[in-house]
């Protein structure tokens, strides 16, 4: 008898619920926020709802620990708990908690009513967590939508500002378009292999000839996911959306949903052993790195600058996808973690300095920051140094693992493009540091005092950036172990044959 059918006849056991415990906890906290919001007067709601949101993420982290104790399949093979999914659960939840800490002061300054803001972050988180553990393409699609819809709304939260609405609308229209590509790909994949379960797809693709349809399906799914990770040429929305959205949310959008989308991409590419991916990834990676870095050179708005930089970083991560599965997966996981630490941190500083109405977001407003706000400038400086990829920061090892994975897979051409790009990238990050420390301010730009919650957010992100830069071993070893479990299932040998055909 078909095991799937057998499973379908049984009722989900308690352990199945444990395996999605973080998602359940997050949903409950999210709903609690929605229910409590109308009961509260506007003055207090900010603190209390934010507190609940933060408590939700902490509870979710604890339940991730509980979840990690019982690895395995759940809900008729739709969800799998393994080291890989635990890693991404912890990552996205941690990102959200730092973003909530950052938003605390930000929302008060912008005079935005908290309302469903924190609730939406938690709901989005449910989607992202599910993305990292789902095995079923249809479930992945639903999770993707849950996460996307929350972020569409969050992007438009600065209601009084026109560019924020533009950002939200643009993100929504293009985003729905992209997800429909993904769905189309899923449908075709079902046509090609007769299944929407990644494990079964993998078996089907590795036994016998690969149908033409599977290649088309793969390409369409790539379009959808490429949009989510902001890889060129599907990146056009990024700068406009990032410029308009509230700064803490940009920190969130550029890391958490991206990490989740990369998790899906890893499952699809390596576990399902996607056919014909090599050149697709090669070109996407080279394009993203080059376009992102070159366009960032001329930006004067710090949010746009970081938007282009995030495109470039997506490119670096894609380089690892072209490498052999084992090395590539762990490199991507490490990169996602260290990029999250430095980028969320950078946006925490940006959102604090933006002040009421996000008035101060151009490079010029940062002139002389080193003198006016030494702590903030120092923190931003370290995040930027990490983004450049200079030693003793996480960004250095992130790039290092990606490029050494690529070289060990004999991708010399792509590595050289990547290394040249990281040298180009140094210029625009450096420009920000130069402005902060070496230029005198032209007009008086007020800097608000540092609040304890922002201080905590900065301390966490700084500690993570430096931790990953000085003792990267622990995180990397964990990533390698989880990668090994993912890849073994992904028919390692078949993948090896596939790639060696195309070695550069």
């Amino acid at each position, binding site marked *: 008898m078909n095991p799937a059918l057998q499973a379908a006849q049984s009722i989900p056991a308690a352990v199945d619920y444990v395996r999605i415990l973080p998602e359940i906890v997050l949903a409950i906290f999210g709903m609690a926020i929605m229910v409590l919001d109308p009961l509260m007067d506007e003055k207090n709601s900010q603190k209390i709802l934010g507190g609940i949101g933060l408590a939700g993420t902490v509870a979710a982290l604890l339940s991730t620990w509980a979840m990690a104790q019982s690895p395995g399949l759940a809900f008729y093979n739709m969800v799998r708990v393994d080291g890989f999914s635990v890693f991404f659960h912890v990552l996205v939840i941690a990102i959200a908690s730092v973003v909530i800490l950052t938003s605390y002061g930000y929302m008060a300054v912008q005079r935005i009513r908290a309302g469903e803001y924190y609730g939406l972050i938690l709901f989005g988180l449910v989607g992202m967590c599910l993305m990292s553990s789902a095995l079923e393409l249809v479930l992945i699609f639903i999770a993707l939508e849950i996460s996307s819809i929350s972020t569409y709304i969050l992007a438009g939260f600065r209601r009084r500002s026109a560019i924020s609405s533009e950002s939200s609308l643009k993100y929504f229209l293009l985003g729905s378009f992209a997800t429909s590509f993904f769905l189309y790909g899923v449908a075709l994949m079902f046509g090609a292999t007769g299944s929407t379960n990644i494990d079964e797809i993998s078996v089907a693709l590795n036994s016998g000839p690969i149908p033409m349809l599977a290649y088309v399906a793969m390409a369409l799914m790539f379009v959808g996911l490429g949009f989510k990770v902001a890889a060129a040429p599907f990146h056009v929305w990024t700068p406009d959306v990032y410029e308009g959205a509230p700064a803490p949310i940009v920190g969130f959008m550029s890391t958490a949903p991206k990490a989740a989308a990369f998790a899906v991409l890893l499952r699809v590419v390596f576990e399902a052993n996607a056919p014909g991916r090599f050149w697709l990834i090669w070109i996407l990676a080279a394009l993203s790195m080059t376009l992102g870095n070159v366009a960032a050179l001329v930006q004067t708005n710090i949010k746009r600058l970081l938007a282009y930089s995030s495109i470039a970083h997506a490119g670096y991560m894609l380089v690892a996808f072209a490498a052999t599965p084992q090395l590539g997966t762990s490199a991507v996981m490490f990169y996602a973690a260290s990029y999250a630490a430095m980028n969320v941190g950078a946006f925490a500083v940006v959102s604090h300095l933006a002040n009421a109405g996000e008035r101060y977001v151009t490079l010029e407003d940062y002139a002389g920051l080193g003198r006016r706000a030494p702590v903030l400038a120092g923190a931003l400086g370290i995040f930027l*140094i990490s983004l450049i990829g*200079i*030693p*003793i920061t996480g960004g*250095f090892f992130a790039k*290092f*693992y990606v*490029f*050494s994975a690529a*070289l*060990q897979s004999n991708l*010399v051409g792509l*590595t*050289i493009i990547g*290394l*040249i790009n*990281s*040298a180009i990238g*140094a*210029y625009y990050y*450096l*420009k920000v540091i*130069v402005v902060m*420390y*070496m*230029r005198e301010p032209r007009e008086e730009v007020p800097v608000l005092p540092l609040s304890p919650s922002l201080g905590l957010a900065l301390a966490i992100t700084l500690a993570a950036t430096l931790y990953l830069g000085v*003792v*990267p*071993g622990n995180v*990397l*070893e964990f990533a*390698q172990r989880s990668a090994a479990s993912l890849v073994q299932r992904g028919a390692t040998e078949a993948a090896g044959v596939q790639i060696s055909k195309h070695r550069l």
Partner: protein
Amino acid sequence: MSGGLDNLILTLVTFIPAAGGVLLLLFPRRDRDIRVFALIVSLLTFGLSLHLIAHVHRALPGFQYEVDKPWISAPNIHYHMGVDGISMWLVLLTTFLTPLCVLISWKSIQERVKEFFILLLILETALIGVFTSLDLFLFYFFWESTLIPMALLIGIYGHGRKVYAAVKFFLYTMVASVFMLAAMLWLYAKVGSFDFVTIQNAIRSGQVPGFAAAAPWLFLGFFVAFAVKVPLFPFHTWLPDAHVEAPTAGSVLLAGVLLKMGTYGLLRFNLGLFPEQSRHNAAWIAVLALIGIVYGALVAMVQPNLKKVIAYSSVSHLGFVVLGIFSFTQAGLNGAMFVMLAHGVSTGALFMLAGIIYERKHTYEIADMGGLATPMPNYATFFSFIVLASVGLPLLNGFVGEFLVLSGAFQANPWYGVIGATGVIWSACYLLWMYQRVFFGKVTHAENNTLPDLSAREQLALWPTAIAALVMGVAPLLWLNVIDPAVHATLAPFTQLAGKVVGQ
């Protein structure tokens, strides 16, 4: 007694300055205390570094005071430190110059004093680390770490077009070292280790697959990074800008130590890892070095700016070092090492002297000086002594190194020796002419009549360099005794190579 200290000494010498820098962070902003503390830390480091030379085993050619501890398991990175007769002296040069830098910056740095000395001490750690690391990764880590403090020293505390100079310095080095990183990653991918000794053994025993085909590119990857740093003609254009705009202490360390990172790299990595390629490429590199010697000297002659004269003289002197290295003779390499040390001492002193006059007149223009020997007799005496040392007067330090280099170059190819020797004449021309215009004759500008002579503190900073210049000239064997075995070991594969050629 020294057993325990022998294992710890390199770690202590390397990290005490940075630890002092971190402690300075906690200091209250009382400038005097900060200066005194920085002086104590740098003197302590110098004192400890003397242990290296006191307990050295002169007969042993290999690395001494080794520490080898695993740092990161995957990739396989070790905290592997050690020095031989070559790097030991460069460590000492660094620790010798740093206290002098503190002294010379006592008065000239009045703003952001705390940050200045923190940067200076961190820079010292990074510089020492470059010379002591034996793990390629660790080396790269320190190599890149020198960039930021130096760029900030130039960009914040410099004068004139300081930001331009800082960014140019940063980008030149950053872009060039990317190629070195690519070569290192390739070696790691094939050998599975970053350890210098392991890689060297693997290459020498021919166990690196694909090495023969990749070697020319690997050689170039390392070479470009080092040639920019030296700087070898035509990569030298960042140097005059950086020097002219840098604060005095920055110039002293830049000329005294940073440039030697390049020549040290050529000696250790290009010659150490790729002897065949080195021999293969020696001809055009020697020609570039000769062009550097002559061109640097000619350009120095026509500079109207004191610091630019010294900066171009560095291009010329470092040409000698490269010429000596690529002569592959015992005398040439010994001489190259000696020129590195002598140049560090005397050019460091020249920059201090230039800084002293700048503190009084706020200009480096030679036209604004003239007849300074009358109001400042002590200053003129020191200046003449150092100029003579730099010109290569026998019994002072410049002579020994240049003589050895030229005799080595003559053995390699008589024309190298002949053209190189003209460099000695040129250097006499531009330095003595510069000296004449600054010090001799009548005082041409009335305001110069009242210039105060050297203060006790300034004399304190200059005396050690003058003494070192004399001792190195009179008793060069103290230095060469230690250098010689290390050079001999470096040259061992070359004599084998030569033997092969003769055998055929």
